[in-house]
């Protein structure tokens, strides 16, 4: 098994272009937490400011997450991905405005898959339900905007070797659309090989 890629954020779309759906990647560098309420405000601000992203978000990565309060002497509490599909309505305008990647979990709509491909952006999936482990990969937490939203505030998290898998690559390949059928095909091939006495 090859070692996972290590990528440093922020990253250009040119560098993201070499990633393919299914690649396992360790991310280091800043990401910005954004859930439903955060997205609604960001998109409203973009519309009000002629398509320009606020808070220095141009070229940055969003993390669909709302952490628990800090604990265990760490800068951030437990923090894992929330369901990405809920952000679908707001994702195309954010990618067009300059967000280059997002971290979440679960399938996206067809129009969002196309938006990632047409802008050369990447959707990373983190493992849902592993928030205590993921919190150990956060080195700093800095409030940026919307403190009234509580856990939905826009917060910069600095990641160190944060494990993700490429879920939608810049060509529009979709891990979630492929993974189940690819595994079923691999098993069928394995079974056939066994029946034929292949020592694999």
């Amino acid at each position: 098994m090859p070692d996972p890629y290590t990528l440093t954020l922020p990253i250009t779309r040119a560098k993201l272009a070499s990633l393919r759906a299914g690649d396992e990647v360790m991310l280091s560098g800043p990401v910005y937490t954004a859930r439903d309420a955060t997205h609604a405000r960001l998109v409203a601000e973009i519309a009000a400011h002629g398509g320009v992203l606020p808070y220095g978000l141009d070229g940055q990565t969003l993390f669909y997450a709302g952490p628990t309060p800090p604990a265990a002497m760490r800068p951030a509490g437990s923090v894992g991905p929330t369901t990405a599909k809920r952000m679908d309505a707001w994702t195309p305008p954010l990618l067009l405005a300059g967000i280059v990647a997002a971290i979440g979990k679960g399938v996206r709509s067809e129009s969002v898959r196309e938006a990632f491909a047409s802008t050369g952006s990447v959707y990373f999936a983190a493992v849902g339900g592993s928030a205590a482990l993921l919190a150990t990969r956060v080195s700093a937490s800095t409030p940026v905007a919307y403190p009234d939203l509580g856990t939905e505030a826009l917060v910069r998290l600095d990641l160190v070797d944060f494990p993700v898998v490429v879920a939608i690559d810049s060509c529009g390949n979709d891990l979630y659309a492929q993974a189940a059928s690819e595994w079923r095909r691999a098993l069928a091939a394995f079974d056939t090989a066994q029946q034929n006495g292949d020592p694999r």
Partner: protein
Amino acid sequence: MIEVAAIADAVRRAISLVAVELRPDALVAMETALGVERAPRARRVLEQLIDNARIARTDCVPLCQDTGTVWVWLELGGQECVSGDIYAAVDAAVADAYRDGALRMSVARDALTDRTNTTDNTPAFIDITFRPRSGATVHVMLKGGGSDNSSVLEMLEPAAGMEGVRELVLRTVSAKATGACPPLVVGVGVGATFDKVALLAKKALLRPIGEPSANASVAAFERELLDAINASGIGPAGMGGDTTALAVNVLSAPCHIASLPVAVNMGCCAVRSVSIDVV
């Protein structure tokens, strides 16, 4: 006579425990799954989830950032009396446990008209029922939004039969598993009425993983559903593999001669519940 303080105390202890400690049956099921899982990426996901459970327990931090809504099911012996305002006492316990445990406040004031955060994770969602046995049992579950959002309820026609139930469960898993944090515990309710079938599905999630239904034909149906779900290839985290679900728990009940109500309540890999006997 049961004091509300005893029930509130059980709720407080339950929340503090399950937020940070994976249900023992879920940890065993995950380790068993790792022993047989064949997909390399799926093995890494399972290892990450087992490691997560260890870190959460050791550091006393939440297993998942979504520390959920609180469901409290209070089962009372038929002769028992409860003194005081049980609803207020449970809500106070929830507020204490979420504040003291540094858990995430995840409740909106009103689904339709006011989505501001209540800031103390109340109200809890409470069911109270009676049973023949004396004493009281407090069941507490923290339910995450991702898995609850992936749940469905359909009123099938009786002609659909077991095959219709099977088709609905498999269709739901296939469409929604990736947002529900697999490996899943799938709770299935069949029967009762529109309002009560969802509660059957939720109660099914309380049954320990690996403990089949006491009804032999239901147990066989559970096994068949689990095998079919795990043949889907969806896998842990939806990234491909053998382990899509750890268990399918089915609860069935009487219903109208015209009806076949079915509810599928998804439980995530951080399934969090405990049942505490009071008195």
